[in-house]
């Protein structure tokens, strides 16, 4: 029995069905659930809170069965995308709301609210009403309100989606601090891949109301279990045929190019390679990488902090992620030829020929 156990949960809202066969978290885990819009992530969270009644299955938290408890007895807090502060209360009253239910000692409440507000950097707006605050301040207050009651489980429903880039980054840092200092167990729903990297230790990928893959962060990113997961997480995806085993490595033929991987497989397989694991070099040299190809630059796509280089290797195209500095240094230009290096450990067999993950 883990800290949070969800088994055989099924929620039927008529037009929408969510099924979660099992989900287990240890105390202090930070689970990021990622999936496209409409995959049922929010409904799942609100079921854990007790606002939708599952038609079957159980939820238990810290040894207690929550399944039929009313929401107010569950000790589960939530942070919503658009803050959901009570508009008729000041920020201070909002943050104190949960505490006021637990204790009547005004001294204590006042001290705790001010402590947490200082930590959140919103002590200067405590007397203002939510309507007058910026998006970042609102979301900080909303987080403060949720964690001040020291919930057994903290849920976050796309907490950064409504914020601009800078506020998003500063709030992510804040949440990371809270995670480290309070050891809160968190389930965080998002459609932003960055949240995975910054915050999670576990990742679940959800689609059409089901959890498709769940596991430790590195595991899910590097070993996606299906086409959908690999594709959704932005990996290069190749189809090939296993040709045999050499020195513990599997050789996979992809349109006459041989990829070597430490994974095992047979027959037709799908390979996934993350862009950041594909290296580009100017000259051939000895390296530990087991996959070395010649690739021609087809396309260069610049984004704010990274450059995606599409490389044609025979009949296939791989996308590699490099820094702008590397582009200048190596003189990467469309049409030029480079060495492409991929470690065998970074080539994953997803193992399904069927594209419908």
């Amino acid at each position, binding site marked *: 029995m883990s800290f949070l156990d969800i088994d055989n949960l099924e929620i039927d809202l008529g037009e929408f069905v969510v099924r979660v066969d099992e989900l287990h978290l240890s105390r202090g885990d930070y689970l990021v659930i990622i999936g496209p819009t409409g995959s049922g992530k929010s409904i799942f969270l609100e079921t854990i809170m007790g606002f939708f009644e599952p038609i079957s299955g159980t939820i238990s938290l810290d040894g207690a069965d929550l399944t039929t408890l009313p929401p107010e007895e569950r000790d589960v807090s939530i942070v919503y995308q658009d803050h*959901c502060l009570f508009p008729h209360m000041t920020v201070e009253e909002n943050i104190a709301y949960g505490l006021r239910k637990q204790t009547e000692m005004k001294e204590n409440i006042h001290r705790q609210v001010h402590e947490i507000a200082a930590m959140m950097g919103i002590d200067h707006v405590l007397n203002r009403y939510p309507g007058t605050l910026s998006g970042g301040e609102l979301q900080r207050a909303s987080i403060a309100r949720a964690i001040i009651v020291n919930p057994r489980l903290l849920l976050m429903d796309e907490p950064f989606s409504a914020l601009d880039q800078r506020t998003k980054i500063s709030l992510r840092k804040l949440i990371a601090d809270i995670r480290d200092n309070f050891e809160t167990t968190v389930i965080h729903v998002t459609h932003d891949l960055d949240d995975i990297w910054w915050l999670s230790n576990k990742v679940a990928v959800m689609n059409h109301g089901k959890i498709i893959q769940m596991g430790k962060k590195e595991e899910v990113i590097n070993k996606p279990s299906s086409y959908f997961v690999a594709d959704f997480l932005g990996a290069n995806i190749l189809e090939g045929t296993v040709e045999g085993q050499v020195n513990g490595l599997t050789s996979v033929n992809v349109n006459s190019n041989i990829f070597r991987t430490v994974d095992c497989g047979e027959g037709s397989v799908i390979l996934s390679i993350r862009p950041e694991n594909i290296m580009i070099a100017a000259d051939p040299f000895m390296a530990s990488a087991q996959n070395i190809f010649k690739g021609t630059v087809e396309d260069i796509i610049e984004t704010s902090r990274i450059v995606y280089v599409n490389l044609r290797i025979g009949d296939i195209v791989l996308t590699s992620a490099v820094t702008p500095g590397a582009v200048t240094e190596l003189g990467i230009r469309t049409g030029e030829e480079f060495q492409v290096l991929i470690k065998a450990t970074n080539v994953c067999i997803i193992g399904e020929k069927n594209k419908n993950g």
Partner: protein
Amino acid sequence: RVSIFRGTCRFFAVIFVAAFFIICISLWTVSSPQSILNSFTSADMIHSVKLSLLTSTITTVIVMLSALLIAYSLSEDSFRGKSIVKTVLDIPIAFPEILIGIMLLIFLGNTPLNYMMDGLGIQIVFTDLGVICAQFFVSLPYTVRICYSTFCNIDRRLKFVSRSLGYTEFETFRNIMIPLSRDGILAATIITFSRCIGCFGAVLIVAGGTYQKTDTLPISLYLNLSYGNVEMAVASGIFLMIISFITI
């Protein structure tokens, strides 16, 4: 800069507003200020005003309390028969006042309930209680509807947050729902009160138009007019107008 189409629309708007305005004014021009003042202080008029205000206030309080609870139950997740309740509550809105009046008259005059009430010494038909009863059934459906749509406009996630922080359903209703619907509840109260004050057809039928007994302002207006007592009727009209203005 303004298109012909929009100009036409504005023209219509202004014309009708002007018409309403002139019509309102014309009521004040028919009698001399002195005679209006005299009518105001007559015993009949004072009785009507008192009766109107008293019954309307009582009805408004009862209607608001009932409407808030009914509207809350409708705004929450479904229970069996919810859709029936919603439909049945919508029907009387389409019913003319006078239809509600005759239904109540027959229900209160011809059913076992009536004999039971009679046995207890309670008389509804043709009394002040009849006025309240008529006002209640005329205004309740509207009021429920306003409260319902007010509650529906509140982000349900605010309720979720309140409950997740340890508050029960009733505490959440009191702490979150009521304060956040303040404007809607205020509007509902005003509309209910003004409907009660103006309620004519149903009151006329259930409470009867008895002079100096169940003559609320609208009824006194009608009675005076049919007796050819135009000045008193106009005075009632002016009183109604003033009360309506104050209510808004």
